């Protein structure tokens, strides 16, 4: 008899997620999924806005200190063709 194990809530994750594990009739793992149960729509509602706003907005995507912002900051630097000092890159973990 096949069985699905659901893990909810998920820890070690800031945000929302569910894990489902599908077992076959022998009780062996057949498949596993990670379901992202929250979507905010930043990709869409940021369109048409000035790019300098994407970082302050992005900070409210996931408020984990520093983490979410690094990718956004890198994108803005690429748009402006700016290369940041080596020390800054080390500090931001890029």
């Amino acid at each position, binding site marked *: 008899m096949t069985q699905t194990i659901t893990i909810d809530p998920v820890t070690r994750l800031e945000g929302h997620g569910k894990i489902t594990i599908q077992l076959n009739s022998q009780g062996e793992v057949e498949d596993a*999924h990670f379901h*992202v149960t929250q*979507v905010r*729509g930043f*990709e869409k*509602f940021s369109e048409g806005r000035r790019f300098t706003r994407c970082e302050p907005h992005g900070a*409210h995507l996931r408020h*984990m200190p520093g983490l979410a912002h690094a990718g956004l900051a890198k994108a803005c630097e690429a748009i402006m063709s700016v290369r940041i000092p080596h020390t800054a890159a080390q500090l931001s973990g890029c």
Partner: protein
Amino acid sequence: MSKLKVATVWLDGCSGCHMSFLDMDERILELAKLIDVVYSPLVDAKDFPDEVDIALVEGAVASEDDEKKIKKVRAHSKLLIAMGDCAVAGNVPSMRNPFGPEAILERAYIENASVQQQIPCVVVPKLLKIVRPIHEFVTVDVFLPGCPPSADTFTQR
């Protein structure tokens, strides 16, 4: 005197309010003498308890799961506090309202995906057409605005 049973919940938020709550640093030790955190994303609890004295809710209501959750929280809590601007007024999650769920899912999972383009539909909750603050679903006892409310705001109450 027995400790107050406190629960914290995050709906469609970014956890910034929870982080700000923790930002009270050593003042949390004083608080720990008065409260027991019985349910929270920060502790290992699976189900919302039957009886909670104070529930702090962060985030707006954006999906059917959020709606079910907030109704459950209201039914089992004596005092419900809407924590932060998303819970109080919608805030950042409601920025998707002019576009609607179909447009944002299309952009995120089809246009922006280079492999396996598909809109998730298994297990993930259905998005509500409009993101709304929690007081549009349940009665809220206390509103704590701020994005996030500062640690001082929490402790001054």
